[in-house]
Structures are given as structure tokens and as C-alpha cells.
């Protein structure tokens, strides 16, 4: 078969993928609270010193977004929730950065989050929604307009389109051509992809096209613009079917972040960044520092 008749493979490494993200861009991050965040790429973005990002978290964002705030990458955060359930009832950096005005928060709830992404996917300026009528959202986020619908004259909210430049996701497997399959439900990853200009997906494994074709109904994202092979790439968060959260690591993060939030001492957090992000030259070295014993201790049903 002539060269030009080969399908294009879209596999790149995490360094190249992170290079897509430039100062001032709007990124949206896959996963949900403590699962399936594309940490290998996010760590590289932090290592690259990217600044002034608008960071759209998942519908319930985890400490992935908090880390980007703590590392100084985020200027604006779009998320209905930034925390870590029992581990961190509020994201420590999210809290102090918002209180001090170091970040802008574009306040929405989960329904408006998905409405905004849908509007973007529909190439529409807005989507109407009734949830949150009567709340403070339109006051604290003046981009949300209260309006009367053109059919029944009912009072609704107009949720503006949320338009990410790049969606960065983590999934189970993909073939080299950008057909992605999740284990589990994929949370809001599909909606994030459908709203974004470009989509980068890091996966636990690259698999042959034949594997995808065995269960085409499982294909959750078609045509990822780039794929990154990143085994354990969601660590310290869980990756359904592969590993659970690394609680010890998460507690290390929260402890360091809380020292800063409570006392202003960045020492422990800077040490965390050095150990896990600035020190390792790539994702594999990050995994080496974590250690194989720890990694496989997370490898449970």
C-alpha cells in the first residue's frame, strides 16, 4: 500500500502534548473528583511553566484543578466544585486563591456546566435551563442571563457557551488512529470532547485497531487529535479497571497545600512540586519516584 494510503497515527508523547498548551489558553480537564484526570500531561504543563490558563475542571473537579492553581498556571477557573470529598472538603489553593482574588471563578452548577458545553458543541451562543432560577448564580456570574423564553414566556436562565481550546482527557485504551475507549462510564469526558476545538487523550494502553473493532459500542471518543501513552498516567487518581487512588499521595498533597493555605509557608508545597513535577524528567521518571511497590499496591479489583 502506498505511503499516502496509510491511516495517520496520532500518538505523541506527553512532552509534545503538553507543548500544545500555551499561556492564556482555555483547557478543559477530564475525569471526576478523584478519578481519571490526565495527570501525566498536566504535570508536564506545570513543568513547562504555562501561565494565565482558563482552567475548566470536570463537573466536579478534583485536586487536579487545585494543583494547577497552586502551581500558578490558572488565572480563571470554571467549575461547579473544586475539592476532594472527605480528603479535602474544599480545594486548599482554590479556596485561598479565590478569597484573595488571585483567580477569577466563573460560577456555575453542574447542570449549567453541561449546558454551556452543549451550547459550544451545538455552535450556539447559549442553552436555556431552568435549574438555578431564583439562585445567586446570575448575580455572581453576570454572563448568565435571566430571560423569558420565546414560546411560553417562562423565566429561564441563558447559559452561555463554554468553549475550550483543548480538552485533555484520560482513558483506558485507544487505537493509534484516535478511537478511544473508556473503562467505566467516562464521566463527562464525551461532552468535554464535543465542546473543544482539539482533544488530547492520554491512555493506559495503545491497542490495535482490531481490539477497538471487537467492541465498537465501547468507543467513547472518535478522532482524538492526539493520543499519549501514559500507563498510570492518572496517578495519584484512580483509573477505572486499572488502579485505585493513591490515598497516601493525595494526603501528602493536601497536607502540603494546607500548610500554605493556613500559614502562607510554601515550603512543603514547593518540595512537593520539586519531588513530583519539576524533578522527574518525564512521566516514567515520575513513576520511578513513586515506586513499583506503591504502584502495584493500587492494582486492585
Amino acid at each position, binding site marked *: 500500500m502506498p505511503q499516502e494510503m496509510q491511516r495517520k497515527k496520532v500518538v505523541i508523547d506527553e512532552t509534545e502534548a503538553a507543548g500544545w498548551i500555551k499561556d492564556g489558553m482555555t483547557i478543559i480537564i477530564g475525569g*471526576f*473528583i*478523584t*478519578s*481519571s484526570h490526565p495527570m501525566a500531561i498536566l504535570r508536564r504543563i506545570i513543568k513547562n511553566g504555562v501561565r494565565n490558563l482558563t482552567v475548566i475542571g470536570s*463537573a*466536579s473537579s478534583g485536586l487536579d484543578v487545585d494543583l494547577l492553581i497552586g502551581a500558578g498556571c490558572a488565572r480563571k477557573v470554571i*467549575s*461547579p*466544585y473544586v*475539592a476532594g*470529598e*472527605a480528603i479535602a*472538603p*474544599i*480545594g486548599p489553593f*482554590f*479556596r*485561598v486563591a*479565590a*478569597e484573595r*482574588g488571585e483567580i477569577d*471563578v466563573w*460560577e456555575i*452548577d*453542574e*447542570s*449549567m456546566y*453541561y449546558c454551556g458545553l*452543549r451550547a459550544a458543541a451545538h455552535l450556539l451562543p447559549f442553552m436555556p*435551563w*431552568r*435549574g*438555578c*432560577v*431564583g*439562585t*445567586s*448564580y446570575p*448575580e*455572581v456570574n453576570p454572563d448568565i442571563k435571566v430571560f423569558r423564553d420565546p414560546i411560553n414566556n*417562562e*423565566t429561564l436562565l441563558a447559559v452561555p457557551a463554554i468553549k475550550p481550546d483543548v480538552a485533555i482527557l484520560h482513558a483506558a485504551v485507544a487505537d493509534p488512529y484516535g478511537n478511544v475507549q473508556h*473503562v*467505566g*462510564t*467516562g*464521566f*463527562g*469526558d*464525551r*461532552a*468535554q470532547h464535543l465542546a473543544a476545538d482539539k482533544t488530547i487523550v492520554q491512555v493506559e494502553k495503545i491497542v490495535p485497531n482490531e481490539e477497538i473493532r471487537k467492541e465498537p459500542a465501547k468507543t467513547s471518543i472518535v478522532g482524538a487529535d492526539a493520543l499519549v501513552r501514559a500507563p498510570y498516567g492518572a496517578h495519584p487518581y*484512580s483509573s*477505572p*479497571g486499572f488502579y*485505585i*487512588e493513591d*490515598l497516601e499521595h493525595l494526603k501528602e498533597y493536601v497536607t502540603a497545600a494546607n500548610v500554605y493555605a493556613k500559614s502562607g509557608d510554601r515550603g512543603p508545597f514547593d518540595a512537593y512540586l520539586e519531588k513530583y513535577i519539576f524533578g522527574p524528567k518525564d512521566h516514567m521518571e515520575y513513576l520511578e519516584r513513586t515506586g513499583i511497590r506503591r504502584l502495584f499496591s493500587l492494582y486492585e*479489583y
Partner: protein
Amino acid sequence: MSAETAKDYTTKELMAAFIANDLEDGLGILVGANLPVPRAGVLLAHLTHGPNMRIIISFTRANLVNEPVLEPFEFITDWRASRWAEAYYIHSDFIDYIKRYGMNEIFFIGGLQFDRYGNSNLIGIGNDYKKLKFRGPGGVGSGDKGAHCKRYYIYTNSHSKRTFVERLDFVTAYGWGEGGRDARKKMGIPGEGPRYVITPLCIMDFEEESKRMRLKSTHPGISVQDVIDNTGFELIVPENVPTTTPPTETQIQVLRNRIDLEGILRRK
């Protein structure tokens, strides 16, 4: 199995039983990870009188009636809980589930602050949104669920004058607004709104006409005055305030043998 009143139970077990008693069969209910009492209450209803409830767990829909023991999980995303799944629940599709599922579901809504009309706030504390004294985690799904579920329960682990306040700094979930039984109808909001407020001290409901919060029962060892002293607004207090109905022996057995083997609800 026995409908007799249990002899030995904790307040958390009593709260779980109160929740269970109020949940009828057929509801859809999300079981999360970090609210052990609502989790136990929902599962108790499911296992004792709710064989057709639809439990949403780890983004799947499940029926757990025939499962002998229900292990708790530390995080809502824990995929190990999917082993009971009958269907997936794609989170981004939930806005499409409002009519057929959402309006048949009940929710537990928390907050940094609540007012007398059951409105709640998860954004933060402070007069100026741009300079909050305390930034909260964000409203999550509470604003939408407040409008788009069959009814909801306000649940908090903290009953104090800092949480039950005269006036909210922000409203993330609309309860009864400025009050009045038609408050929600006037706004066009379909859900029935907050039914009960469940705290470590007591159960409260909403007076039928004004929709002002009203003391319904106090938990064992808690006086009416304790509740009043810890509430930052004037609560409606009926002449007789009973003690919250204790769990039955059967409920305690099911809780301890199938739902809460770890004894999280037995810790003081």
C-alpha cells in the same frame, strides 16, 4: 426481624432510620461516599421496603436488594462499586434525564449556610463575592437538583448559628425563596423542594403556609432550647416537640449486618 423499638442505637443510626422511613419504594437515589448517614438511610429503605428503588452508585444504576453486604467506598468514583450495575449513568447526560429520572429522584443537599426558607449556600461566606471571607467548594449539582428532583432533604453535620443564618450571603439551591407555599410554583420550578432538614440535633420541616422552618423532633438528649440556641433565625417551635422516632430492632439489624459493618454510624 422485629418491628419493636431498638434498645440500643446511636443518633446517627436514628437519623439513618428517619431517612429510611421517609423514602417510599420506587424512588431513584444517588448513594455517594462521604455522607455515611444518608447513605445508610437510603440503603436501609432499599433493603427493608424499597425493592424497586433505583440506586445510583459510582455512575451506574443498580438494584442491591439481593446483595448480602454493601461495602462502603471512600470516593464516589470508586469503580469497584460498579459490580452491581444494571446500567451506566453517563454523567454528562444527566441533563437529559430530568423528566424520566431526575423528577423521580430525591437528593441530600448540604451547605455552608441555610436560611429559614430552606435556601442554601455553597459558594462562600462574605458580602462581596469578589472578596469572600471564606470560599466554599461551589454549588456542585445542588442548584439544579433543588429544582429538578422530586423532593430533597437538607442534610448537615453542623447545626450552629453559623450554618442556620438569618440571611444567606449567596443562594446556590433555591428552597422556598422568600417563603410562601406558592414560592416555587411562581418561579416555575417543578420539584417539590426541601421536605426535611436533618441535623445532628433534630429534624425540622417547613410550616405548610409560610414555608418557614419548623422544629419537628429532637434527637435523644437534645432539648428544644439546644436547638433554638444553635439556630441563627427564629424557628417555628410547636407546643409539643417529640423525640425523633427511634429505629426498630429490624432496622438496626439490617444497618449493622448489611450496610454498616464497619460501624461508622456507631462512632460517637
